């Protein structure tokens, strides 16, 4: 079973977009799925050569060639949300009731909007100038997530779902960008700690398979190392 997005290279592992792959890795680890992590490393500035990927892109028989990809025998999927949902369905992590499924769908999309805002900031050449505006607006988004979570253990409700793997990673990234950003949202802090305490996750994060950096690829202005 191969998960795809990156090939493990020697020392410095620079991935194309760690962000999209990390929730997939976390989910694979949590579900105890054996996988191979193929990592593609882009070249140094100024060209950031991506030929290691582009050379292979059209030979993998992917219907919609892209990174990340997930290959399991004849099954070949791209699009991180489609991959997450596929793995989630196999393990009952896609929302157990209709109410949970609705919450999962809402959060999958809210998380995508949240991620896109962060990516736009991190890859913007004016990152330093835009950062303070971003951080000023951040609390309103965190407040919405905090209210939506309420006193539920997980975003879907009682049950863990794949969106928790996405939201953990996104909130964690924000604590790297702004270490005190969750101080007014104790339920979100509790949520992060609870996620990290899941046995398989804890084990993974303590292992040498776990890569918590870089967050973005070399062309980003933040999180590229």
């Amino acid at each position: 079973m191969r998960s795809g997005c990156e090939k493990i290279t020697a020392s410095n592992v620079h991935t194309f977009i760690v962000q999209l792959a990390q929730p997939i890795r976390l989910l694979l680890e949590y579900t105890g799925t054996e996988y191979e992590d193929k990592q593609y490393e882009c070249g140094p500035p100024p060209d950031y050569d991506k030929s290691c990927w582009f050379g292979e892109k059209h030979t993998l028989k992917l219907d919609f060639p892209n990174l990340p990809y997930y290959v399991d025998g004849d099954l070949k999927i791209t699009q991180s949300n489609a991959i997450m949902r596929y793995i989630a369905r196999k393990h009952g992590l896609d929302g157990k009731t209709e109410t949970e499924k609705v919450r999962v769908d809402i959060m999958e999309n809210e998380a995508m909007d949240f991620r896109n805002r962060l990516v736009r900031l991190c890859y913007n050449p004016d990152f330093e100038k835009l950062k303070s505006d971003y951080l000023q607006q951040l609390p309103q988004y965190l407040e919405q997530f905090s209210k939506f979570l309420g006193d539920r253990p997980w975003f879907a409700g009682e049950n863990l779902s794949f969106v928790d793997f996405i939201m953990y990673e996104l909130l964690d990234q924000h604590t790297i960008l702004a270490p005190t950003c969750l101080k007014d949202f104790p339920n979100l802090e509790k949520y992060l700690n609870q996620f990290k305490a899941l046995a398989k996750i804890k084990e993974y994060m303590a292992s040498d398979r776990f890569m918590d950096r870089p967050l973005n690829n070399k062309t980003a202005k933040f999180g590229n190392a």
Partner: protein
Amino acid sequence: MAPVIGYWRPRGLLHPIRMLLVHTGVDFEDKVYPETSRDEWLKDKESLGLPMPNLPYYIDGDCKLTQSLAIIRYLARKHGLAGTNEEELIRTDLVECQVQDLRLALIKLGYHEYSEEAREKYLKETLANHLKLLSGYLGDHPWVAGNKMTYVDFLLHDTLDWHLFLDPTCLDGYQNLKDFLARFESQPNIKAFMESEKFLKWPIFGPMSKWGYDDAGSKLRFPD
């Protein structure tokens, strides 16, 4: 009381949802916010009980949803327009994401980058690549999921329809995509709706866009 869908006047993100509701034949109410001012929406925004206020919204009694894809997936499950086996689910999840990428690409062009040069480049590169892959994936299936019509067909139809405004000839090399559009538009409730005066062809984007709102953008496809 009939469910209410709320959005600005332009087609934007709502249209596939509206088409799906039309197709199912259920009664629903369209709450249209004028796109020229945020005042009316801002009055409603915090008072409708939406957990994360946004447009579009869908309200049916206690069910109060935002995020267009969450809404359409909910309606799909409710009205038998979701995939029913693993293969259909994989196909619909994948194409939902792919079509969303293409929608966002046109939104980016229309809102931020539009020029004749940018349009040409988009048609030759971005759109051509997407269409080739979508056409290949659809193959000779009648619908994206296979033999069953699902909510993703509404997303695909709307996205292809948007692009016909950008270039009315863009589907010329893809007979199966043209057949797909014709098949979709021949569904009885959809056909009746598209022929009625309730059907809004244009604008597809909001007034802040460089292309997608002003009438000039619709003239290539509908010269009158």
